[in-house]
């Protein structure tokens, strides 16, 4: 593999009983990569490998410096890597004040520089507090400052917001976005939250069972999910089948008509909003019409998500007034229609 002029090149293999991580990653300077994936897919393992906390097979090169090279027997210790690591639940040193926590990673002028970071974040009044006296949001912000203050070349964030309250989370996310925009190195962010990923990342990497199953810009990934997990994240229906001209034959046997389908194994994506529900069989343009049964209804803000079973299991998103008009209830039988133009088909 030729090493391009980008900032992080990593080929990482970790073998554990019953689990193997096998990831190639290239990230440009100043880019933010969001790593997404189900529980146990190896996200934390990947960050720990990059931080040097676990020994790997493979090679990690950061800004031209080789941090790991199992072939050459090279392994730079975590403390010598200049990487920053932020954990899900802050992990502030419980026996030190906030100021000492922020100063911990600094070399000289420690107290002055740490105070400045706290001041910039508006946390000066907490400098003398112990971590247990902080709220969750404050603690996570301090943890972020503590890491940023060391000016790492590679910033690794392991679900930095997931332990926070929904209401604080937006605030801390804003602060994180601001802090990250001023940070020059490579950033890798593990998250469960698609909004967080889309808001903060230039590139998404989707891990499943230790392998990268999809990668690309947030728009690319959500537009063309390649797994159930990504489809759930993007909130769309993902179907799999074989393309035949403009038709897609689903694995269940049902046929789908799309604007364009191609040949061979394909994915088909249907946005829930594009799924229309009727009490009687609709006449007119929609090419795809089936019977279905509303399994359950889920109020989400100003929309209702209806899970449908039947020939093609789908989720539809309708307005509450539509629910009233259709007298939709769990168990109701409906007609389901999707316009051919609303179905996006691409190669599997």
């Amino acid at each position: 593999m030729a090493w391009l002029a980008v900032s992080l090149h990593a080929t990482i293999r970790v073998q554990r009983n019953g689990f193997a991580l096998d990831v190639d990653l290239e990230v440009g300077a100043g880019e933010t990569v969001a790593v997404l994936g189900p529980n146990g897919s190896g996200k934390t393992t990947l960050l720990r490998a990059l931080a040097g906390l676990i020994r790997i097979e493979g090679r990690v090169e950061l800004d031209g410096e080789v941090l790991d090279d199992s072939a050459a027997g090279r392994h730079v210790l975590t403390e010598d890597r200049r990487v920053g690591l932020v954990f899900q639940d802050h992990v502030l040193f419980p026996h030190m004040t906030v100021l000492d926590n922020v100063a911990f990673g600094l070399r000289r002028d420690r107290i002055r520089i740490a105070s400045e970071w706290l001041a910039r974040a508006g946390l000066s009044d907490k400098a003398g507090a112990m971590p247990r006296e902080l709220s969750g949001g404050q603690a996570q912000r301090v943890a972020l400052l503590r890491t940023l203050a060391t000016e790492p070349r590679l910033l690794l964030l392991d679900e930095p917001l997931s332990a926070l309250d929904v209401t604080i989370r937006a605030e801390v996310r804003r602060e994180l976005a601001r802090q990250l925009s001023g940070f020059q190195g490579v950033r890798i962010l593990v998250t469960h939250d698609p909004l967080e990923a889309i808001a903060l990342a230039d590139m998404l990497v989707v891990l499943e069972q230790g392998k990268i199953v999809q990668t690309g810009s947030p728009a690319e990934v959500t537009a063309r999910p390649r797994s159930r997990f990504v489809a759930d994240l993007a909130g769309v229906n993902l179907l799999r089948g074989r393309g035949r001209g403009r038709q897609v034959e689903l694995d269940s046997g049902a046929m789908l008509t799309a604007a364009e389908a191609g040949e061979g194994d394909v994915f088909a994506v249907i946005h829930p909003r594009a799924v229309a529900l009727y009490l009687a069989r609709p006449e007119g343009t929609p090419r795809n019409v089936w019977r279905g049964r509303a399994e359950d209804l889920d109020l989400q803000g100003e929309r209702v998500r209806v899970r449908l079973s039947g020939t093609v299991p789908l989720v539809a998103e309708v307005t509450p007034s539509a629910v009233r008009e259709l007298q939709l209830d769990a168990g109701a039988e409906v007609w389901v229609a999707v316009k051919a133009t609303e179905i996006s088909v691409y190669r599997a």
Partner: protein
Amino acid sequence: MSQARIPAPVLALAAAGLLFFLLPLAGLIVRAPWGQVGPALVAPETATALGLSLFCSVTATAVALVLGIPLAVVLSRTQGTLRSVLRALTTLPMVLPPVVGGVALFLAFGRRGLVGEPLHQAFGIQIPFTTAAAVIAETFVAMPFLVIAVEGGLRSMDHRYEEAARALGAGSWRVFARVTLPLLRPAIFSGAVLCWARALGEFGATITFAGNLPGRTQTIPLAVYVALETRPEGAIALSLILLAVSLAILIGMRDRWLGSP
């Protein structure tokens, strides 16, 4: 808080257990030769032996801390058979009859011992029969308690603090001194208390390896033993003084120090 009730049989057994500890102590107190406690208290030998006991037990605890914490750190990193073996080896001084422990100390640090002989021939240093010997004997017998307590603390510690410190660029020494040690404080403290208590009561290894010389190696347990020969009442009075002092020290220690890690 309305915690779960303690079941009645458990309460009864606990009472039995406490009684089992308290009855012998009560026996000592009830049958104590109270007339002898006064004289024993003011006798200059008592003050000497008590001072020596405290000095030796505290020094032994300090040595155990310096050697035992590192040993616990290394133990906690081992796995599998090596771990079992090392752990068993550290537990052995507890099993060894203390008098044999004293003999073993001679064989290592005595004038003819593995280490003691070269030491004696090169520098003329003799360890047995000195206060240092008493400290060594107490350390040998009491250190396992510290090591085991600290190792338990290390195993139940959240190692992400150490990882966070490393990611912040702290080298191994800085991680140890600024993160590991402070986080271990409760385990260290409770281990140190066990170690100190065991050292304070040590008799067999001390009398064998350090001998019994008032003012130099005669700690309270030795003085008690000697006194038992001629004036058993005085021996009991002396024991009561030791108990009272330890009780005061143990109670005086702050509860929070003793908490689990």
